[in-house]
Every structure is written in structure tokens, then in C-alpha cells.
């Protein structure tokens, strides 16, 4: 009897859930409909009806929210519809399933963050060669050769180099640095490591005292950075974090570190991320700077490239990687750095049909 009641309850919950999901989809559709109506009145002439753009992010994350703002601005400016899809987990298998479903719906232009640098290429080969879909990577690149037309991303090595140079200059060009890397399986980590090491190599009085890596979550970041601080107590002059989780972990740890060890000796710290906790840490003087990626540009530029490709533009020569630029955020420009990034975005947009595309 109890089992029957339970089963009935579960069925009820499932039905309600399904209804809830359906009504959610309806509301999403309504939103899209509204945007289509508005845009068709405003810029009907510029809309290419053959191009159906989808923007795919693997999982909810503050970075993707920033990128989405760029996509939404693109929709507003061009009047084109973009199907925005955010996955539930950060895996290539899940990404493949979602993208295949989008293609089945008629999408023929895809701006996507690849989960796996080499695994994503298998998906791209299928959809570009069999279905004539144009693919633009945003946020990070896939391994080469790839059938993606472009990658719009931060030059991670350059960003790591710039961040390290900024850190070294803050340190007075001497002292020991703790280098905090993230997941070693990610090819970008190797590039970031190279960027940091190349910068340090230019300063004879600066040394990397320790490297820590294998950080996938913020909890791992906290534990490992804490251990490294303990191992080198009083010997670390600067800390560089070239990943988002590590940067968030660093900003949490340093406030606790100063509480326990006192703030007579300041550890200069530079990260890569504009998470609200990181920005608070800059404002409070816990960390000194962070590299802000052009997340808005990642969204806007990738969609604009797809629009042009849909209009018949071809990739010019061996153009492929578009460095979306970055800005060092300190307490001095914390309120104005976004404007600098907008200028970078505009500059790239102005050069798209001359430097990267041709008819």
C-alpha cells in the first residue's frame, strides 16, 4: 500500500516537473518570439534568414554569463536570433548530445566553448563536413588540426606572461614567486606555465620558489595554496594564479593568512578572473590585481563572425585565432576596466572583414 502511494506520489511529482519544464520552455519561446518581433521591426533588412546561430556554454558559470551579455548585445544590435543553450555539466559527451540536438533543430552556425580540446574536434568534423555548420570556438581553442573556422579567446600564454610581469614589477623585480597552476590535463595550463616561466626568466633576481598544480575545484585550490604557504612561510614575495578556481581560492586564503600571520609582510598576488570575491579582495587590498578577460567580446565577436560566414564571407588566408585581449585590473581601474575592454572589442570588430574574413 505504502509502495503504491509512493509510486503515485513520484508519478505526480514527475508529471508536475514535466509540466513545469514545458511551461519553462514556453516562457523561453515567448521570450524569443518577443525578441524576434522587436528585431524584425528594427533591422529586418540586415537579418540573414538562412543563418541560424546557436551559442553553447557547457555549464552555468559567471564567465559564461559575461559572454552571454555579448551575445545578447549582438542580438540587439543586429536583429538576428541566437539560440542560447547552457549545458548541465562540463563534459564533452554531454556537449556532443546537446549540440547534435541543436543541429537537428536546424542550427547551421555555432559559437561554442569546447569542453575537451581534442574531443571537441570529433564533433566539429561531423557537423562541419556533413551538415555544413560553421563553428567558432570562444573562450578557449581546440587542438589542431580543427574544422572550426575561428577561435575567439584570450591568448592564455600572453595573459599569463602579462600577469607575471605585472606581479614582478609590484615586487620591485626581486623575490620568490609561488606559481599556482590548475588542471594539468588542459593544454592551456602548459601554455600558462610557459608564459609565467618566460616572464620570470627575464628577471635575474626573481625565482619561482614552488609550483603547485592539479587544481580542479576551489576547495583543492584552498588546500593546496595553504599547504604551499605553510611550506614556504615567510619566503614567498609574490603569488601568481593563472586559473579561475585558483584565483578565487587565493583571494580566500590570503585574507585568512593575514589574519593569522599578520600583514607586516605583504604577499603580492595577481590572478585571472573577475569573480565578485576576487574584485572584493582587490578593493580590500588582499590581492593586488587580476587579469580581466574580454568575456563580452568572446560572445559578441564569435556571433558576428558566424553572421559574416553565413553571408558568404570566407576565412582570409590562415586567419584563425583572434586574441580578444585582456586588461590588468587593479584598485585604480576597477571601475573603468570594462570600458577598456569595450574599446578592444570595437577595434577587433572593425577589422573583422579586413584582417580575418574576405568575400
Amino acid at each position, binding site marked *: 500500500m505504502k509502495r503504491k502511494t509512493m509510486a503515485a506520489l513520484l508519478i505526480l511529482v514527475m508529471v508536475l516537473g514535466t509540466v513545469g519544464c514545458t511551461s519553462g520552455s514556453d516562457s523561453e519561446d515567448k521570450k524569443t518570439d518577443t525578441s524576434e518581433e522587436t528585431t524584425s521591426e528594427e533591422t529586418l533588412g540586415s537579418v540573414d534568414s538562412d543563418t541560424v546561430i546557436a551559442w553553447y556554454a557547457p555549464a552555468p558559470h*559567471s564567465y559564461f554569463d559575461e559572454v552571454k551579455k555579448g551575445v545578447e548585445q549582438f542580438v540587439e544590435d543586429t536583429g538576428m536570433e541566437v539560440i542560447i543553450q547552457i549545458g*548541465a555539466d562540463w563534459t564533452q559527451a554531454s556537449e556532443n548530445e546537446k549540440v547534435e540536438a541543436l543541429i537537428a533543430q536546424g542550427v547551421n552556425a555555432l559559437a561554442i566553448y569546447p569542453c575537451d580540446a581534442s574531443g571537441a574536434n570529433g564533433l566539429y568534423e561531423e557537423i562541419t563536413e556533413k551538415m555544413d555548420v560553421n563553428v567558432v570556438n570562444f573562450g578557449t581553442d581546440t587542438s589542431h588540426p580543427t574544422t572550426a573556422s575561428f577561435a575567439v579567446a584570450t591568448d592564455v600564454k600572453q595573459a599569463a606572461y602579462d600577469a607575471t610581469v605585472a606581479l614582478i614589477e609590484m615586487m620591485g623585480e626581486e623575490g620568490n614567486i609561488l606559481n599556482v597552476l590548475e588542471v594539468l590535463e588542459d593544454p592551456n595550463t602548459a601554455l600558462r606555465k610557459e608564459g609565467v616561466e618566460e616572464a620570470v626568466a627575464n628577471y635575474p633576481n626573481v625565482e619561482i620558489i614552488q609550483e603547485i598544480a592539479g587544481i580542479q575545484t576551489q576547495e583543492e585550490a584552498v588546500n593546496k595554496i595553504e*599547504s*604551499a604557504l*605553510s611550506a*614556504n612561510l615567510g619566503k614567498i614575495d609574490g603569488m601568481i594564479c593563472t586559473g579561475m578556481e585558483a584565483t578565487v581560492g587565493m583571494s580566500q586564503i590570503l585574507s*585568512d593568512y593575514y589574519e*593569522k600571520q599578520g600583514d607586516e609582510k605583504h604577499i603580492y598576488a595577481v590572478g585571472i578572473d573577475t569573480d565578485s570575491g576576487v574584485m572584493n579582495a582587490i578593493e580590500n587590498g588582499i590581492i593586488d590585481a587580476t587579469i580581466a578577460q574580454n568575456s563580452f567580446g568572446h560572445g559578441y565577436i564569435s556571433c558576428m563572425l558566424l553572421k559574416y560566414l553565413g553571408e558568404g564571407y570566407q576565412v582570409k588566408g590562415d586567419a584563425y585565432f583572434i586574441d580578444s585581449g585582456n586588461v590588468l585590473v587593479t584598485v585604480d581601474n576597477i571601475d573603468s576596466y570594462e570600458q577598456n575592454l569595450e574599446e578592444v572589442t570595437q577595434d577587433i570588430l572593425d577589422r573583422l572583414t579586413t584582417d580575418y574574413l574576405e568575400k
Partner: protein
Amino acid sequence: MIKKNVKNEKTIKILFARNEVTVVLAVLVLGLFFSIFSDSFLTSYNMFNLGRTVAIYIFIAIGQAMVVIVGGMNLSLGYIGGMTVVAAGYCMEVLHFSSFTAVIIGLLVGIMAGFINGIIITGLGINSFVVTLATSFIFTGLINGVSQGYPYNEIPSGFTVLGREGFLGIPFLLWLAILVLVILGYFFKYTVTGRRVLATGGNKEAAKMSGVNTKRMIILANICSGLFAATAGLLWISRTGSAQPSTGSDWMVISFAVAVIGGTALKGGVFNPIGVFFAGFLIVIVKNGLVMLNANIYYEQTYLGLILLLAVSLDSIKDLLNVRKLKRDLKDEKQTK
């Protein structure tokens, strides 16, 4: 004199016969090793940090152990922790509730999640693996849906006292973990409900025949699992001063590793609070020690695996040696006859 020696020998034998002795020995040996090779290992700052991490690992492990004891498992443990973190962060930052209210709501979220797991497992008779796998997706969706991937950073400073301060040089978190382990040790050894929970995991049918309401025990175990996952999540906020939605995503391995190395039998019916305590230390010491020794970052996972394998093998090595000794004794006895 001879009597005294025999008594001492007996005491040592009894001590070494205990299940947790190998984990304790492994912790001592590794602690000694790392303190010899790293000047920083025994510093108060490092010990304090180790203690805090161990405490959170213990709560995560207890969360898993509670369901393993009744012959189940909880794959949604980390996501219950994540949901708690998001719920508490949302209450404090968005709804501007007091820390106390946020904690209560966070704990209720954990309890409710555990209750839902328990009620589905017992009500529909579905395997806990399948149920908690399914609910882990539901909980992940709720975490993402509510937080949208954004952390909650406006945590009142008073909230971090528990996670950042200590008493007698030992973090409050570790004191709390010890207290909970003592209570659980008492609960499983001296209370009727505790014995019933163990009996349910030891032999469900036998327990049922003895009049134990096994379904109720399984629901209770799942509620406790949710409660401890929620506690771990709240303590993590207290330690870092931020509520990150990604909290809990790597708890599954930790929860099983600490619980099982600590002597919690995967087939159920056994809980060893001393073992869990030292197993928490074992894993944290190895991870910390590798950073202390500046181990090669590319091979770090290999070292971690090798050391843990060696540590957990000690128990089996001890058993093998005992069997060999027994065989030798029997052989000697035969020859004497």
C-alpha cells in the same frame, strides 16, 4: 616480573589486533617522515590548517559512512553539500537573513534531501546507487538554477569565527569533528537505535526478523547523511568566508576514501570513529606532505596513490603475517607432538 611482561605482551597484542591500528601507524610514520624532510610540516600554521581540512573531510566521510553502515551509498552527498552552501549563501546575501537562520535553513535543506533519498530508497525499494545518482542530477540542477553559477560573497564576518579560529591551538572545526565522532561512537555502541542501525547494515533480513524496522533505520541513516553533508558545506563557508556553488563537486572520492580507509565496511554494519578520525588525517597529511616536499607536479597523483595504497595495504600485510605465524605455530606444535 614474568607475569608483568606477559601482561604487557597481551596488551600490545590486543592493541595491535584493533582494526584502526594500521591507519594510526600509517599516520604516525608519515607524520614522522614529512616532519624529518620538511621544516615547515610541524609549524603551528600548517598544523592548524591541517586540522581544519581534516575536520571537513571527517564530516564528509561521516556523511557517506552513515549510509554505508546500512548497506547503501550516497552519490548525491557532494551535491547536498553544494545545495546547502547555495541555500545558506542565498539566505545571507540575497534575503539578508541572519547567520543563525541561514544555518538552520541550510541544515534543513540537507535533512530534507537525505529524507527524500531515504524515502524513495525504502518506499520504492530501489537501490541507493540508482536513487542517489538520480537525485544528484536533481540537486545539481537546483544548485545551478538558484545560483546561476555565481558565488555568494557577502557572508557576515561572525560566520567565519568557527572556521578560522581555534581553542588551545586546535581549530574549532577539529574540536567539533572530535565531539561528533565521540557522540557517534557512543550512539552506535550504547544506544538501541545505534545498534539497530548497525544491525540493519550487518544483516538486513536478520534484523527484520528480530523486530527492527529496517526501513526506518535506512531513512534515519539517509537523513543523517544529508545532515552531515550540510554541516560540511556550512563549515566550508565558515572557513573560506564565501559560498561557492561548486562546493561538494569533489566530495565523492573523499567521502568513500576516508570512510573506508577508516574501517567502515562497504558491506555495512561496521563504523569505527577512531579509524575515520585517523583516515582523515592520513589523506590530508599525504596531500599536504607532497606539497611540503615540493613533489613533481606531474607525478603528484602517482605519489598520492602509491602512499595511500601502501598505507591501506598495511592491514592486509598484518593479516598475512598473522596467518603465516599461525601456520608456523601449528607446524611447530605438530613437530613437538
